[in-house]
């Protein structure tokens, strides 16, 4: 980008040495420095992340509507309203609930699956493939398939329950059950990713540790407790942080499967942000709720990383 300018400068104005000395080395230095490699990324990062982030933050202090009307500075009014908004609290509660009931199994099941596969099960490729395959499916496919499975009337699961004489469950229509159903779908769909992270970590544990332990007479349980799990600690921290953030951001599968229903029992915070902003046209308020959410996510991440660091130290 800058190279032609430099050469032209030198060709057409050879006498303006002072200028050249000031500009050319800088550009040359830039051309050779790591910054020139980072520049494309920084531009995209700035345009599509930093700028919207700042703009959104500004919006949260205004009453801007979707159609651009309003826009007056309202100070902290949006934040105050959000804190007193029962719908917001309900959505936040739902999100927290979903995060807990999805993150725990997503970490534990992934670990269990990885240990099983790593323990030398025959047909490794098959297990790896089948555990990871659901993760490759688009969310729309997953949501549609599970909506059919969960269907109270003719869904496979209830048919199965009925076959054994059980009463059908309102998987997506019962307020007490719907979030669990969505979490179950999410676990099935995304556990493969964590599984893969764990599997990679397991494979990088040096064999000589196990050999030494075996010589010392450690059994399978002792090896797991004293070698495998401690060696996996770093991965576990990463998996937990990533999973927690992913679960907090839940939106797609809820939007596609229940639209937040029945009776708002599955409305997540991001779904609420979307509804308020795009259906209700209140961009300013929706931005304020988003930033409250961002604050929560940042706090949780920091706390989690701190805890992990302390444990390691």
């Amino acid at each position: 980008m800058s190279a032609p300018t430099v050469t032209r400068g030198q060709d057409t104005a050879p006498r303006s040495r002072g200028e050249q000395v000031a500009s050319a080395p800088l550009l040359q230095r830039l051309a050779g420095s790591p910054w020139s490699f980072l520049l494309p990324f920084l531009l995209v990062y700035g345009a599509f992340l930093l700028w919207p982030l700042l703009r959104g933050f500004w919006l949260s202090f205004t009453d801007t509507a979707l159609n651009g009307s309003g826009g007056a500075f309202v100070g902290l009014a949006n934040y105050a309203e959000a804190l007193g908004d029962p719908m917001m609290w309900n959505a936040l509660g739902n999100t927290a609930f979903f995060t807990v009931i999805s993150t725990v199994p997503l970490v534990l099941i992934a670990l269990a699956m990885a240990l099983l596969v790593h323990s030398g099960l025959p047909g490794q490729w098959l297990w790896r493939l089948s555990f990871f395959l659901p993760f490759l499916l688009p969310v729309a496919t997953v949501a549609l398939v599970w909506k059919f499975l969960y269907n109270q009337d003719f869904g496979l699961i209830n048919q199965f329950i009925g076959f054994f004489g059980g009463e059908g469950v309102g998987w997506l229509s019962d307020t007490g059950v719907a979030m669990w159903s969505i979490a179950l779908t999410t676990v099935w769909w995304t556990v493969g990713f964590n599984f893969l992270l764990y599997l990679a970590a397991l494979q990088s544990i040096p064999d000589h540790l196990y050999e030494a332990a075996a010589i010392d007479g450690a059994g399978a349980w002792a090896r797991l407790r004293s070698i495998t799990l401690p060696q996996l600690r770093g991965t576990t921290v990463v998996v937990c942080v990533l999973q927690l953030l992913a679960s907090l951001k839940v939106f797609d599968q809820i939007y596609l499967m229940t639209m937040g229903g029945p009776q708002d029992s599955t409305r997540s915070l991001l779904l609420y942000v979307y509804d308020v902003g795009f259906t209700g046209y209140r961009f300013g308020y929706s931005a304020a709720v988003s930033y409250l959410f961002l604050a929560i996510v940042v706090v949780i991440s920091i706390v989690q990383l701190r805890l992990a660091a302390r444990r390691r130290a």
Partner: protein
Amino acid sequence: MVQRSHDGAGPPGAARGQALLSRRRLLQGGLAGAGALALGGLLGGCGPAAGPGGSTVRYWSLFNGGDGALMERMLAEIAEQAPHLRVEPTVLAWGAPYYTKLAMASVGGRAPETGIMHLSRLAGYAPGGLLDPFDLGLLAEFGVGAEHFLPELWGRASHDGRHYAIPLDTHPLIVFYDTGTADRAGLLTSEGALRAFESPEDFVEASRELAEASGDNGVAFGHVNDDAQGWRVFFSLYSQTGAAMELPAGGPAVFDPDAALRVFTLLAEVFDGETSSNRLDYQTALAGFSSGRSGLLFCGEWELPYLRDAVPDLGVAPFPTLFEQPASYADSHSFVLPRQSDPDPERVRAAHEFVALMVRASLTWAEAGHVPAYQPVVESAAYRGLGPQTDYAASAENPALEPAAWFAGAGSDFQSDMGSVVQTALMGAGPEAAVDQLDRALSNWVARTNPTEESA
């Protein structure tokens, strides 16, 4: 399709511009046959200036499936009738996303020349300056005027003395029934039509008989996790009681709690979870009815094309009158002129002509099950011969149009909120609690300020 037939009409020299095979075009192509469109576009020449005096009309709609196919046919008809109009249709997914896009296009000033909007959404768009009014004089030139529409529908299309929407159809809530099941339940008249119901109790009784006759479910009503069905059925029945509902900005909301309680109680009695399921979602209700496991279905007439194919002995009737007066929830797909920051008079004129032609061609549209809004079509012999559409055409004469409010209308949060109230009545804490929830929700909505309206 439309574009292709125009390509022949356009002069070869007008090939400028179509090289822009935009993403949207390509998506459209998916509907009309991508290859044909792309080839036709590139070879035939369909630039913005299609012919001498030709004008482009960009047209946004939300019709998919059977509706979409019929819309394509109407556009093809228009293309033959008026080759000087170059219509560029864009189909977007219906619901909240459609209205968001329409609003944002208007805000950006680069909106299409015309688009479809549910009449119920007008109150949220016209006052906010998102729409341009129609020129009724111009429209009259093309043969369409107030005298061709039912006054109630036409009246709803104006705001502040200006006219913002031209209705294409009315789409009421109706009932579908299986003639075999209804017959076994003793609900058919000697002519083979669904008999009238004398009272709410009479209908509850009938729903029990239907359950017995179908061997499974009596009346199917898919409202769970749906953003509109609950409200549609509730508002139909509420309007039948004669009670008023007004939602003036700033409040207070006007509604009759006793009437609402009557409606919720009746619904809870019919959908008791034993004879008629109280927890069906839209698809399940549809599937259950089409597979013969329900005797009767509360649904919109827009499901007619699907059900006609799926149910051999399909009967259709206006939504039953269970309270004092006939009424059924209805909305209307209408043409609007989204605001453009710099409208081209030529194109505005073309848009008026296009809208007039479409409305007058709505006999084709009636095949989808919709009741045409343009009365000369409804009165035509051709429409009268169109069974079973005529069996419920009377529904359009008692439309329960939802209260005009900026937050209400098709695809709005308001409707899904109301759906939640119905779910409370049927699956939650029961009718009394639902009335309380309705009261809270309505007060809450009217208290909100319209974010799209400039505050004074």
